[in-house]
């Protein structure tokens, strides 16, 4: 009996082992994992790429953290993340990793105020004070002062935030840390933080649900989610003092700034005069040296070609799905980074 069991388990292990090997060496399939934010865009892009080239891309939308972990374990060809690698993740991987921008997304501030008042104006200070729990009613003089002619009711403010770790929270808290020194020291920025005020909802739908149900609530969700569900959202004063309504154009504009050569930069609170301040990139992450784990040069080339296509022809699919395409500046940097990828030290593209 025991022998039987052992024999069966060996057979099972052998079978699965063979199976993974087949997947790994099947040069028609490229494996990726990570950001769930970019998943709808990737699904469309990769389906198009498949009909064009016959190459299949298997992308698992397991969250940015999971994607980075899988890349670290070398079980995927690329990871996708809404934030650049942090110091600990960089140290864990140990070798250089390239960050290639794919598209931009944005975070909008949504609220529930009775009456027709879409696009109320908010300044960075007011947003920070609300989420710090310091401004507690809507008829605060500071809010009324910049919203002349809009009827703002005297409701208490209920803050709604994400309860799950997310790239959306990362962008939002990164922005708050830039515009409010108090937020930076008290809370900080990351995918999940210790919120000083408010209630948590799971996912965009959880936050939107809280906001929709509670008069006086304020929360933050992805731009795409707000557009699809026709939520009210605020226009926000950017660094140059302009009040910007979030839109695909203003998000792309936010990325049209001088980027560092590795593109690892949050474009929140952007210097761009027409840029929406709560914008962020999503990156694809790959190893700079593509010869690892016995990968073939052919496979590396296919991966690089796919990513090149993503940032050029693939950009046509961004706007119909409410993603912001890469700005000129971002595209130029991404091209340069892709060209720096090597196989045995020699450039691939």
């Amino acid at each position, binding site marked *: *009996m*025991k022998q039987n*069991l052992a024999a069966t388990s060996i057979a099972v292990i052998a079978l699965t082992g063979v199976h993974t090997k087949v997947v790994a060496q099947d040069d028609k399939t490229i494996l990726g994992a990570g950001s769930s934010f970019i998943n709808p865009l990737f699904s469309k892009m990769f389906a198009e790429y498949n009909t064009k080239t016959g190459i299949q891309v298997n992308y698992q939308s*397991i*969250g*940015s*953290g*999971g994607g*980075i972990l899988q890349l670290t374990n070398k079980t995927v060809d690329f990871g996708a993340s809404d934030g650049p690698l*942090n110091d*600990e*993740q960089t140290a864990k991987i140990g070798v250089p990793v390239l960050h290639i921008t794919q598209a931009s997304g944005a975070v909008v501030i949504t609220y529930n105020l009775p009456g027709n008042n879409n696009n109320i104006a908010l300044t960075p200070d007011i947003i920070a004070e609300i989420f710090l729990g310091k401004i507690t009613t809507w008829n605060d003089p500071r809010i009324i002062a910049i919203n002349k002619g809009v009827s703002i009711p005297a409701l208490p403010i*209920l803050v709604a935030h994400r*309860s*799950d*770790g*997310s*790239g959306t929270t990362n962008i939002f808290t990164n922005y708050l840390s830039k515009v409010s020194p108090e937020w930076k020291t008290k*809370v*900080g*920025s*990351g*995918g*999940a*933080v*210790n*919120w000083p005020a*408010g*209630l*948590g*909802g*799971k996912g965009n739908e*959880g936050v939107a*649900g*809280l906001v929709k*149900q*509670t008069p006086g609530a304020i929360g933050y969700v992805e731009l795409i989610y707000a557009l699809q569900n026709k939520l009210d959202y605020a226009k926000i004063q950017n660094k140059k003092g302009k009040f910007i309504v979030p839109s695909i154009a203003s998000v792309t504009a936010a990325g049209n700034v001088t980027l560092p050569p590795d593109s690892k930069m949050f474009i929140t609170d952007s210097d761009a005069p027409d840029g929406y301040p709560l914008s962020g990139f999503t990156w694809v992450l790959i190893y700079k040296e593509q010869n690892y784990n016995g990968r073939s040069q052919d496979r590396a080339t296919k991966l690089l070609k796919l990513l090149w296509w993503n940032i050029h022809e693939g950009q046509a699919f961004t706007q119909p799905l409410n993603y912001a395409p890469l700005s000129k500046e971002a595209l130029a940097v991404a091209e340069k980074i892709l060209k720096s990828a090597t196989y045995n030290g020699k450039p691939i593209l």
Partner: protein
Amino acid sequence: METTLAITKANKVSNGKIRAESIFKRSLVVIGMSMVVLVLGVLLTLIIESIPSIKSLGLKYLWGRTWDPINNVYGAFPFLLGTLLTSFLALIISIPFSFAIAIYLGEYNPKGWLSNFLKNAVELIAAVPSVIYGFWGLLVLVPLVRSLETKLGVLPYGIGIFTASLILAIMIIPYAASLGREMIRLVPSPLKEGAYSLGATRYEVIRSVVLPYTKSGLFAGILLSLGRALGETMAVTMVIGNTSMIPTSIFAPGNTMASVIANEFTEADHTVYLSALIELGLVLFLVTVVINMIGKRIIKKFTNE
């Protein structure tokens, strides 16, 4: 000659039978033991993966009140409190319902279409996926609780410990109700008939014969319900408010251990953070074990009496 042949043949047959018997028995042992190995394996994995968090935080983890992934400070106390509060509150709310159903189906109306219908309806409650309860809670129960809170004069969040307990109570009713019904139907009729013949009313029979006879079974049902409530994740996370502040009343928002794990696990991006979440799983595991052990003790005490 022929007789010896027949005897050896018979021996062979019985030998084969004995072998089949022993193989059957052994496979039962192997399968049974594999469950033990599985549980120990889970416990071991939880402990090993929790080591980074235990090293950096120590015992402070258990009564710390701050959960701050940015500064790597983790305290599980608010979530431990949230888990225990919601589970026991749910239990208290559910017991009258599950006992009433058990007594009605076990004693008053054990047969017939109405009984069948009711029994199936109760079992259906257990079969509905918890995410559906979560949505229903968010869309239907939360506004109701909010209007109740407005009347009571507390902050009208709508979501919070109380709402989560209500949802949990509904979800766990079938466990205690089904087990209780079976137990009540197993009460020997001579006992009941004896009581009736002494002039006891139906209520008196239930109070002094059926319930004392079945109390260990009823308690086992409650324990089963509690186990379900402790680990429930999805429905709770949607209506509890997900804040790491210590709840100040049963209407305040809070969080539970299972809900924190489900919320934060996928994006936990550094070692201690991930490990702190796994340690939360370890604490939940231990809480369940301790509560089960206490429960078993109480059941044993009941049966010995």
